[in-house]
């Protein structure tokens, strides 16, 4: 059966670009998540501050992280769509093997 063959392992340049974008966005999220965890671990008193008219920083930053995950996901999807617009999904047989 054709499904038993190995999948095509070449990476197209488009796939490489998508991977890079993914990693860059991921790095941003790591900074956000890591920063938040650092606050929780080392400066918890800061999280009790209430700069946003009543809602404390703990809740605001938690919600912010959830929103950031979604925003980054959308950014990634749009970026990949733009990249694919250029490549039109063509596979190049001599591309570097992954």
């Amino acid at each position, binding site marked *: 059966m054709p499904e038993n063959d190995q999948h095509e392992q070449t990476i197209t340049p488009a796939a490489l670009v998508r991977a890079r974008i993914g990693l860059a966005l991921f790095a941003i999220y790591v900074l956000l998540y890591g920063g938040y965890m650092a606050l929780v671990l080392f400066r*918890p008193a800061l999280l009790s501050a209430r700069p946003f008219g009543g809602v404390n920083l703990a809740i605001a930053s938690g919600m912010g992280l959830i929103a950031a995950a979604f925003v980054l996901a959308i950014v990634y999807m749009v970026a990949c769509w733009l990249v694919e617009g250029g490549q039109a999904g063509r596979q190049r047989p001599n591309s570097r093997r992954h």
Partner: protein
Amino acid sequence: MLYETSPTAIVIFAAFVLGVIGFSFFLGRKGQSAQGYYAAHGEIHWFVNGIAFAGDYLSAASFLGICGMIAFHGYDGFLYSIGFLAGWVVALLVIAEPIKRMGKFTFADALDSQFNSRGIKLAVAISTLVVSIFYLIPQMVGAGDLIMPLLGLPHAAGVLLVGVAVTLIVVTAGMVSTTWVQFIKGSLLIFFCGLLTLLILNRGLMVNAGRPGAANLAPQVKTVCPDGTLLIDGKPQSKEHDLRPVGTILALPTRYAGQTSTGPLGPLEYFSVLEDSTIITWSSKKHADAEGTHTTYSPLERKGTDLLKPGGYFKGLVTGTLTDKLDFASLMLALFCGTASLPHILIRYYTVKDQAAARKSTVVGIAAIGCFYVLTLYLGLGAMTSGALDPTSSNMAAPLLAKTFSNTLFAIISAIAFTTVLGTVSGLIMAGSGAVAHDLVENVLHIPLTDREKVRCGKVAAVGLGIVAMALGILFRNFNVSFLVGWAFNIAASANLPSLVMLLFWQRTTKQGITAAVTVGMLASLTWILLSADTFEKVYGWSRESSLVPFSQPGLVTIPLGFVVLIVVSLLTQKNQPTAS
């Protein structure tokens, strides 16, 4: 606490469960090839798959466990929400596309796609089975916790009900119907939790949960006698003499002086009013003597500002010892890394047709799951002030909150929570049965199977796994659900993530490297857990101090260990093996 079972509740519940099973029979009439059984022909639409991700992922731990933790301890349950969701960012931005490119049916396929190594297939199949089983236990325990108050049946009955229902679903139709079960469940869960949140905001906050007079703040004592009878404050438990429901506001902010209720509140107002209020939560203390084991539930007056910040459950964040902080960091790391490593999540990448669809469905999943976790904070805080909490069970917080609005809503939410468990358990059994039939039997033992035999083998494995899951669910019935899920995440992250990431990004990964990393990661995290203070205390009944490891969550140590092992072994086996070049 004893619960009144209402006929409405039972009817709605039965309707849901039978509806779901019936739907799966209907869908199962096609999809009997291996491609159909394990991967739904790769034809699931990305939007459906995305919501199915949510349905798959939002298990008992998310819905019941987190809401319950927030209701009892405040903010800290939300930390679980944040950690769980963050893991999806890893899945999307790092893993989603490459994994789709690489595999056919299972996670082992993906890791092995370039090496064709029996070692890898064996190690990964075993780690898939181990993680699936660890993840199954809290689901089954959660199911038992749900059935007891809903239908008045004993815990074991709930476990058996889930086991049988899921096995039926999985055996009849495989991935197509599990996907649809999860899609339905995901949509319903988010819809009804949204509805409940709106009701909470509309009700606003009330002193003493809207009941006249002041709250009864007398401590309550539950005694389990040596012969098994249950006493409440010294007298036998009965419908007339039972534990009082708890969790109320003592005082609203001064700006509401003279009022006992705030009226409808906006989403941000809800938090700010709560922060300025004083709330009565309840703590429990156990001690044993000749007459039995006594648990005393005492009220605790807390300021809103103290409850809405970290430290209520993770006491280490407040006390500040280094090992407690490491334990917390380790758990958060495991949650971050674990989502992308869970076998039953990963197989869902094979049910869509291509990488663009895999990406889009993950984005939909993140939106749905993120939305849900935002709601958990409202549900948990609403339950905390609802006056309806059962002091013995945090898992029941969300359904009991629904009951304060209407019995019908309670029945629906409980039924949804039950199908929550059905959905997750289906996915886990699919992943496990794939590991057995496809990975172990066909690829490791080299027993060739025709397409139909492969499907049949998967179904037999599904039944076997169902039986194991039921037995363990009954055995572990007294465990905290989130604690068990944390185990599964630690093992998944330690066993699977290093190999996945290094295979994608490091050309010199060898097959021995992967086999070693998966094996060591799994064994190290498993051993650490078995030697931890929590296990010593709750499983073996030994003292916490005698445990052999400094903190309970292994992730901080075993995840890097997996990476190190992979790198070292790969470098040692460079010359003579095909590498991921």
